[in-house]
């Protein structure tokens, strides 16, 4: 769903509301002076009006920012704070609280392997070891070519299909080494 070359693991956040999204194309660099397009600004205002207090739209707007600029830098935090009349400190506090906002540039694809109990019982440690070997990175790192960031995460609530992981916005279930190899080969 994301535009070509997207580095986000989320679909366009313009969909966070109820209407059809304006297509966003993720940038590959995070500009020093981030700015939304006129349509995006209209979408921000629409989202803000959905909540009794405009601030309720902060999480959805941060998703738009991440899809547009690639990740949430301090400059992006400041820009978003300005759209809400909030202090940059408040936005920083929010961004750093949640795991799905990237504070640095992620790879073109993000792999999040579940390491919680049911996946652990189904062999998550060897799944993670296999991914580390294949990608040549540690958990938390991005491959040198910028293709994949590898993360390990808490329960993604698909334990019936353990071991499992999330690749960008898809759940990949009942993993085996062979299935992982196929998936990795398919990632641009």
């Amino acid at each position, binding site marked *: 769903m994301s535009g070509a070359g997207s580095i986000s693991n*989320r*679909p366009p956040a313009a969909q966070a509301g*109820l209407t059809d999204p304006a297509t966003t194309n993720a940038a590959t660099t995070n500009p020093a002076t981030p700015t939304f397009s006129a349509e995006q600004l209209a979408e921000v205002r629409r989202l803000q009006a959905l909540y009794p*207090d405009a601030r309720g*739209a902060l999480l959805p707007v941060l998703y738009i920012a991440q899809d547009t600029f690639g990740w949430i830098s301090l400059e992006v935090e400041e820009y978003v704070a300005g759209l809400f009349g909030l202090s940059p400190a408040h936005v920083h506090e929010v961004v750093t*609280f949640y795991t799905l906002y990237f504070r640095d540039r992620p790879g073109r694809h993000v792999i999040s392997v579940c390491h*919680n109990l049911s996946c652990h019982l189904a062999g998550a440690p060897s799944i993670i070891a296999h991914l580390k070997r294949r990608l040549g990175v540690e958990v938390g790192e991005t491959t040198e070519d910028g293709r994949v960031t590898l993360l390990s995460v808490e329960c993604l609530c698909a334990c019936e299909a353990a071991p499992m992981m999330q690749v960008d916005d*898809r759940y990949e279930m009942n993993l085996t080494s062979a299935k992982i190899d196929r998936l990795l080969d398919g990632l641009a």
Partner: protein
Amino acid sequence: MTAEKILTRSFERPDSHTLDGYRASGGYQAWPKAQAMEPAAIVEEVKAANLRGLGGAGFPTGTKWSFIPKNHAGPVYLVINADEGEPGTFKDRYLLERDPHALIEGMLIAARAIRSATGFVYIRGEYVEPWRRFSAAVRDAYAAGYLGRGFDIVVHRGAGAYICGEETGLISSLEGKKGWPKLKPPFPAIKGAFGAPTIVNNVETICHVPHIINRGAAWFAGLGTKTQGGTRMYSVSGRVARPGVYEESVAITLRQLIYERAGGVTGNGRLKAVVPGGSSAAILTAAEIDVTMDVDGLRNAGTMAGSAGVIVMDETVSIPEALMVVARFYAHESCGQCTPCRESTGWIYKITHRIVEGRGRRADLDTILDVARRGAGTTICAFYDGAVGPYISYIEKFRSEFEALTEAAVAAAPRRVVVSHA
């Protein structure tokens, strides 16, 4: 006897998530009935049905609804908790993907009962496909005129934080803040989202409501036990032959669920332990599975029904290792507001880690028990109590397994040379 499928009745239909599919399986027939009822009568019906919250706490739903102040003039909000994050639980994902209109119809009815004009559905950020499915259903429900005539739904995505499943943490997050739980009282029904009276209910809880209105409270109450009506969706995972979601009467026993539904134990085939209600529930031994899976049955067994996430472990599973994995989760997810929770979760994870790595000390087990017991009940939210359940029960019920590790570590440690200062 397998219970009649209610929540999952249409899961096999490929079009179950569409408006047509929902209507074809009897959907949107309860809403006109509810529109002809007084709000108070809806509340009474749900009370009489003995519907209890299925998100974790098991609180009676009708009673919760009746806490909304009677003569409140301003807005009242209905908030749906679709932040499913309890390890071992995956039922709400199925409902959002396969029966999203049931949630919408349930929300319409619940909103009428509490006189709310706006509902928020808070879906965990990782649930992208469920969110797409549900958002599409909301658009269709607007187009069909169910929504937008006195009741609106705002779909809100979380951004990755287990604590946002706790209802006041969820409200903080919905308000555009970090997901810090709030001290109660005031309870959300008095002062909740954006300062207004708010009812927070789980997805599955609300999906039951249309069926209660359609078929009556007595029918629903009769499906369960004396103190809890209905069926619920059990998420079964771990070492079983057929992991998955099973809709059963809340009167089913844990033994039946494991052996008759989920196909029995894999691994070496012999059961060692079961977590019955998501990772925050105290663990049960193989000798303790003849319990009914309703809220009170599991409470009497010293654990909890929680989110009905059943995690099965066979004899080859290391309980200390399992506790380490669970402890890592709580250490990662503590929101950090309360000292006992923030400090103990990190500390206990470190201790369990060193025990598993063969560097445990003799005093470690009692240290964990002591730290866990002292902090319980002292924090802002129930997260820490949910961590204490596993800490204490894993060690108390499987102490010899932990001791085997700590004693081996003590025996292997290099003897300290005592230098005398002559």
